[in-house]
């Protein structure tokens, strides 16, 4: 992961979130300058509200929740799918190290990267907010934002095994990316119809949003069940599937 361009570019992409948030805050802070920019100012107001810490934290939390699913999914798709695209999967077989250990190690790397990157982006966002000098800071706000972000990241990570499974079954990157797009679409539909709290892939974004009160124990349960099924299917596939690549 250190060498590859995939985690580097996804981390850089993720880092755009606090930069964009900072830009919106700058625009909202100085309406005179914003008015002279015209259309940009109007869009910033719709997205972020007012130029203060609560708006910035909201923006960071939502973007990490939604962007996280896409970016963590891309990295998971790459970590598992590249073995098929590069034909290196046969070098992971017929070894003293079991297939289960290899799959577990890949998940550990993905989880560590996802948590580290999310914390980095959150920290970067705080630095940007400090540099832009927006009002309304409080430790309570920071704590709440931190809990929201970590919570949605953990919930998102729990749903990554299906991406890994599809990278194996599809023998590459494309199937899991298609899966991710489908899940985002279904999550949006479920949320729109008021069933988001029962659809596992809608729960992380709901957790990070202002509709968090819709989530109950049942929501966490469906995510846990989906996660366990995903892990079980992934491990089982790697143990039993014919590897002809």
């Amino acid at each position, binding site marked *: 992961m250190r060498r590859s361009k995939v985690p580097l570019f996804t981390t850089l992409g993720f880092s755009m979130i606090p930069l964009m948030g900072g830009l919106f805050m700058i625009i909202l802070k100085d309406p005179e300058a914003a008015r002279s920019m015209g259309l940009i100012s109007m869009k910033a107001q719709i997205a972020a509200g007012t130029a203060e810490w609560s708006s910035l934290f909201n923006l960071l939390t939502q973007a990490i929740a939604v962007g996280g699913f896409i970016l963590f999914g891309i990295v998971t798709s790459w970590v598992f799918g590249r073995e098929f695209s*590069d034909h290196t999967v046969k070098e992971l*077989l017929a070894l003293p190290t079991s297939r289960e250990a290899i799959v577990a190690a890949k998940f550990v790397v993905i989880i560590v990267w996802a948590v580290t990157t999310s914390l980095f982006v959150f920290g970067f966002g705080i630095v940007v907010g400090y540099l832009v000098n927006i009002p309304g800071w409080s430790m309570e706000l920071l704590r709440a934002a931190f809990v929201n972000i970590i919570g949605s990241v953990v919930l998102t990570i729990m749903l990554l095994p299906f991406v890994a499974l599809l990278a194996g079954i599809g023998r590459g990157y494309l199937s899991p990316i298609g899966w991710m797009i489908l899940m985002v679409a279904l999550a949006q539909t479920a949320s729109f119809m008021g069933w988001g709290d029962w659809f596992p892939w809608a729960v992380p974004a709901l957790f990070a949003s202002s509709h968090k009160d819709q989530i109950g124990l049942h929501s966490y349960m469906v995510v846990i069940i989906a996660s366990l099924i995903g892990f079980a299917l992934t491990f089982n596939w790697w143990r039993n599937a014919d590897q002809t690549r």
Partner: protein
Amino acid sequence: MDYAIETNNLSKFYGDVRAVDQVNLRVRYGEIYGFLGLNGAGKTTTIRALLGMVRPSEGNAKLLDQAIGPHGRGPWPRVGHLVESPSAYPELTVRENLDVARRLHQIKDSNIVDEIMEQLAIASYADRKAGALSTGNLQRLGLARALLHNPALLILDEPANGLDPAGVVEIRELLRTLAHERGVTVFMSSHILTEVDRLATRIGIIHKGKLIEELDADKLETLRSLRLEIKARNIHDAYSGLQSAGYKPALQDDMILLEEPRAIEHPDDVAGVLVRAGAPPTHLVMRQQNLEEHFMRFTRS
């Protein structure tokens, strides 16, 4: 007797396609077994089944007296393999790729990577990214990975693929040394029949999924022997005439073959017998058979 490789009715079907069909292999310890077949004959599928990479549809396999079980169970600390074209992580260097392999083999001594790079003549490429390697050097990297843990059994799919002539000789000598001096068993598939002919102590020919022939070293030697090829307008009179003169002719298509020393040493006497029998030869040639002719004859029929 224990065998290094033993398969019992090993079969692999993909729908109606019988990629491997009731293959019974017996490879003794210390042998160099050449596994020959045309493209699509089932060589690589057999190798993948031996390594637990595909599950057999029927039958079973044992390596080093251990059954190849479900979930890829097998005696992997003692088996090295190179399957199809070698692959490596392109963004990692040669050294880093071998280090990953070392850790997957649970070898603690990191010096072994330098040793194997020297042995396979890729030390000068140690810090080059694998994605920038030539085909030949990538093949050497694949072989290095197969040999890294000093295996007792080597299963190699086209080991000389992509190598220049010097590299082919180098690998041949390496495998011969491993087999003769260290008792390593080598099971290799190959298209380069001349190389198998020079190296193998036993060969198996697989065709359309079936193991159609196995030849031991002494039979291989017989194959390499000289023979007299005879054609005549009246082939049957030629045949009877030679039989009457005490020869042991063999009829193959439209040709008579004589392999006995008397015929090889005195082909002029054979010509005389044919003329007296009223069947003068239209073609009388001394030829040394080779594995290629034998193989092509088997796989064409």
